């Protein structure tokens, strides 16, 4: 499993594109927001947590189809399925490497973009914390979507359609934590819910995704 | 026609849209059902003839 993680990370670094692209997309989306809603700093400060969360979610969505597609196309998936490590483990590792190459950089970049949107000072820590807790769930749910659509030719668009409704709870709680954080409100319960979703999804989703992969393999 | 008062537009449009949606669903289902049935029948006849 560590070997698989290392290979995926090496591949992501060598192929470039992957996380650079997600980050750039995040940056562009956030920069476009003031052009759409106007430069009023008060409005920007109010919507900043939500915009940053939404931007991160969309940037995460961009690279989901690559979680399994590359290994599928060159036959590695067949070989991985016959290898001694369980498919559930493969899914978990793939989701983890997706998170390390997209979710983590997005989380780290978010505060910088928060400055552009005039995010109130107390919000930064909570924004980073909520993204750090929430983006793993996005990667794992996305891995499930990718497993469903891996055998399809034009799976990319369908993948978004399948995954976006599944992202709703994570987005709600994540953005709520960030919003309450920036307004200095109490945020214990959404934070607990967010962590709960991430944990629950991490524990159960690999099984669903592996089941979908097995169906696609036969 | 009952007196619908100031809400006539709302009530009638709600009925209209809902029944239209149902009608479209029924029509689409029937059309597809017919098409599939015809295709299957044609295929089975062709096989029988062979």
């Amino acid at each position, binding site marked *: 499993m560590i070997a698989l993680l290392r290979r995926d990370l090496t591949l992501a670094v060598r192929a470039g594109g992957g996380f650079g692209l997600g980050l750039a997309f995040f940056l562009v989306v956030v920069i476009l927001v003031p052009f759409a809603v106007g430069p009023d700093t008060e409005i920007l400060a109010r919507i900043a947590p939500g915009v940053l969360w939404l931007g991160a979610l969309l940037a995460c969505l961009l690279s989901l189809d690559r979680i399994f597609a590359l290994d599928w196309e060159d036959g590695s998936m067949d070989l991985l399925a016959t290898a001694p490590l369980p498919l559930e483990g493969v899914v978990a590792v793939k989701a983890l490497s997706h998170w390390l190459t997209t979710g983590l950089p997005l989380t780290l970049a978010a505060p910088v973009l928060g400055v552009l949107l005039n995010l109130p000072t107390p919000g930064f820590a909570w924004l980073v914390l909520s993204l750090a807790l929430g983006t793993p769930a996005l990667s794992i749910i996305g891995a499930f979507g990718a497993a469903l659509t891996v*055998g399809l030719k034009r799976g990319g668009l369908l993948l978004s359609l399948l995954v976006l409704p599944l992202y709703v709870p994570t987005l709600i709680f994540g953005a709520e934590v960030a919003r309450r954080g920036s307004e200095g409100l109490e945020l214990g319960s959404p934070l607990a819910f967010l962590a709960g979703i991430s944990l629950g999804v991490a524990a159960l989703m690999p099984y669903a995704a592996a089941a979908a992969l097995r169906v696609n393999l036969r | 026609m*009952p007196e619908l008062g100031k809400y006539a537009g709302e009530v009638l449009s709600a009925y209209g849209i809902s029944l239209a949606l149902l009608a479209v669903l029924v029509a689409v289902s029937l059309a597809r059902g017919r098409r599939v049935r015809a295709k299957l029948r044609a295929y089975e006849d062709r096989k029988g003839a062979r």
Partner: protein
Amino acid sequence: MSLWEYANPKRFMQISAAVLPWVAGFGGVCLAVGLIWGFFGTPEDYRQGATVKIMYLHVPAALLAINGWLMMLAASLIWLIRRHHVSALAARAAAPVGLTMTVIALVTGAIWGQPMWGTWWVWDPRLTSFLILGLFYLGYIALWEAIDDADTAADLTSVLCLVGSVFAILSRYAVLFWNQGLHQGASLSLDKEENVADVFYFPLLLCIAGFVLIFLALVLYRTRTEIRLRRLQALMARDRLL
């Protein structure tokens, strides 16, 4: 004879052919009577005025939007566990019907909400949950359409339906948490009779019965279509191979 015998496609075709006209006929009659009674024969509500008549469409549609998904969930489970083809196809057949019900519920709700709440749309938990439910239906249908191999499609959509159900419930709680909402409580429930006055109650029951029966008739009919389509595909596949 066990209940599972009905899952044999041939038996299902026979039985559904016999049952379908009755279900459709009764459904049509119930709905027509209920709607006409409701539309012409019931008074205006003292607060809502004539808009109360939208209820006869809104409530049954909303009910079926949710129960349609539950039916798909049950059918998906049966397919995954017992692998009865008809079950998977029934789930597929129900999805567009459920989606239509969701759309009817949303549209009638919006039309009703305009004069009552003064806006077409509010991000109320119930409305939002229905919107999300509609998205789930869309994704489910799209996944069925996208996959060529029928068994693969049945398996994957069933898994999606299971996972989707869990997330639908999660979303419901998340949305409740997110916004407390304007929507009134349920118009109808078995233990709380005082919800709707009797004058509205009976036509509403008739409309619900009509909607349920028409839903059933549509699902049966569409399942028959799916079975025929599947048979056609199976015949063609066999001819290609042999």
